[in-house]
């Protein structure tokens, strides 16, 4: 069987219609390259897509778009993306967060998009550390994290030079790891700098209608430029000849050719498409970290229940273990998100309340479960994560008057009761869901532990962009697609 594109030739084929692939394709189409985007799934967006279930629309990922930049801000990643893709701010409809927290027993650090809030919180909770923290921030600001040739350094080691209290070091690591570390328990300092700036110095925002707004903006832009795409049809194989990608075979059997190929599907995933590589190529550089995520639809706005945080990064002790759990899920730490708690313009409120909880999970453990075990494990961990989240949230406010102050245990039972009562619908996805819909090996959301910053591969015309090039998250992925397209296809000498 040969498909409709058989025999076609392109200047560039982009594998994957996630954030990075779309951004790369837009840049190329903008400068009149003949581009084909090939996506295996039926929808664009990849790790941050959206879906419908039981008549409701859900975002796969979106807690927060990081790297918020207010109008008029200079030189920040969001501004670069808007310029490079010729998008306007209005296209993204971003609303800023209300306020978030890092919480461990006995300590809580609030932060907003105004960095002074975090600074004053650290001064309050860790008075002996504030000078070191300020020096660390100066160091971070002066650091050129995007240079392609920087020496790797352990982030924990660098932080410990500035901060003598390991509790504070751990607290800062929680959000940074959860929002983008592909490595267990530590990360490269330049990656830390990218994330610290994205989360704390810039901040969180969200479009009122969620991630579909961003995907729609990218798709519209690409369509306006006349870019071609092939959906529901992946790349099956890249035929190589003497270190060169000579042909690309699609799932429908079409054979297409291109001067250059940019792949956004991951490092090992891309190698394994190449005819000159063994089936387990890249196995020494595949990610171990995956996550589960629960989504609870609430009958009320979270703020009406007394939950006003945008995001809470939690950990149940003073030490933080960010690694593949032995169990199906590690519920000791995680992220709680209320997508309702953004400052949407014109007083808009999301129609329903949402509570999302993310925690570390073990792909291999989930992969061995039989179907019924899988379903019951999902239910069990859904409930355990809800309980855990309640430990880090204020007790939900209920309408009826309470005459007595119940002891702690009753308090917790009461909170659980209220949450169950307030639940209109629930969903959960596991590492297997992530692999099923995005092809990332081992459900590794943040991809390979060793990033390929140059984007180069063993083939002279095959490049990587996105997760495994080293820029993560929605904003990072777009920036990666843009810079790889500029460097390897549009840049000098091309």
């Amino acid at each position: 069987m040969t498909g409709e594109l058989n025999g076609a030739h392109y200047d560039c084929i982009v594998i994957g219609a996630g954030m990075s692939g779309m951004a790369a394709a837009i840049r190329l189409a903008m400068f009149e390259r003949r581009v084909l985007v090939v996506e295996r799934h039926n929808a664009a967006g990849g790790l941050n897509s959206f879906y419908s279930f039981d008549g409701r629309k859900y975002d796969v990922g979106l807690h927060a778009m990081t790297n918020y930049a207010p109008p008029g801000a200079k030189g920040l990643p969001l501004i670069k993306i808007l310029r490079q893709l010729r998008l306007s701010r209005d296209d993204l409809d971003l609303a800023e967060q209300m306020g978030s927290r890092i919480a461990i027993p006995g300590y809580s650090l609030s932060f907003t998009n105004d960095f002074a809030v975090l600074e004053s919180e650290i001064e309050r909770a860790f008075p002996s550390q504030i000078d070191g923290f300020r020096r660390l921030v100066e160091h971070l600001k002066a650091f050129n994290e995007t240079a392609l040739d920087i020496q790797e350094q352990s982030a924990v080691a660098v932080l410990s030079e500035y901060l003598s209290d390991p509790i504070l070091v751990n607290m800062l690591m929680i959000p940074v790891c959860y929002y983008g570390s592909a490595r267990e328990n530590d990360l490269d300092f330049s990656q830390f700098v990218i994330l610290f700036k994205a989360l704390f110095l810039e901040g969180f925002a969200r479009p009122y209608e969620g991630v579909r707004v961003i995907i729609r903006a990218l798709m519209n832009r690409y369509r306006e430029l006349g870019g071609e795409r092939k959906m529901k049809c992946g790349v099956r194989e890249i035929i190589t000849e003497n270190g060169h990608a000579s042909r690309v075979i699609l799932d429908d059997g079409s054979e297409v050719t291109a001067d250059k190929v940019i792949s956004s599907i991951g490092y090992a995933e891309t190698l394994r498409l190449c005819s000159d590589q063994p089936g387990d190529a890249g196995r020494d550089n595949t990610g171990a970290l995956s996550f589960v995520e629960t989504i609870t639809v609430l009958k009320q706005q979270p703020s009406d229940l007394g939950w006003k945080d945008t995001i809470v990064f939690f950990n149940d002790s003073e030490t933080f273990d960010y690694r593949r759990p032995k169990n199906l899920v590690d519920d000791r730490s995680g992220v709680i998100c209320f997508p309702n708690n953004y400052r949407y313009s014109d007083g808009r409120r999301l129609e329903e309340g949402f509570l999302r909880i993310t925690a570390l999970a073990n792909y291999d453990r989930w992969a061995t479960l039989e179907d019924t075990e899988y379903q019951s494990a999902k239910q069990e961990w859904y409930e355990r994560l809800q309980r855990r989240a309640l430990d880090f949230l204020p007790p939900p406010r209920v309408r009826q008057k309470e005459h007595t102050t119940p002891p702690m245990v009753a308090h917790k039972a009461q909170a659980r009761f209220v949450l169950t009562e307030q639940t209109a619908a629930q969903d959960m996805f596991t590492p297997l869901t992530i692999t099923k819909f995005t092809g990332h090996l081992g459900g590794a959301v943040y991809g390979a532990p060793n990033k390929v910053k140059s984007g180069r591969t063993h083939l002279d015309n095959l490049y990587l962009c996105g997760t495994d090039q080293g820029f993560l998250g929605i904003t990072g992925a777009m920036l990666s697609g843009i810079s790889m397209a500029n460097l390897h296809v549009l840049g000098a000498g091309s």
Partner: protein
Amino acid sequence: MTKDDVKQIVLDIIAEIAPDEDLSDVKPEVRLRDQLDLDSMDFLDIVMELRKQHGIEVPEDDYPQLASLDSCGEYLLPKFEAKASA
């Protein structure tokens, strides 16, 4: 075609690339980078838009010639003229 026409073309391109910049008071003799927030990605785009919209090629070694509006006028005018008479 005059140098002023060329400067206007460059300004129009900058307006497309960086709609968030205020271009009402750009001083032609001052380096663009010193009065606007433009980085190397933006300069690459100016070059690519010149090629796309006007068929003008600027080799990488000549990028410094695009530093200010005046130098753009100086450097690009002969290229536009050559194009017109071709």
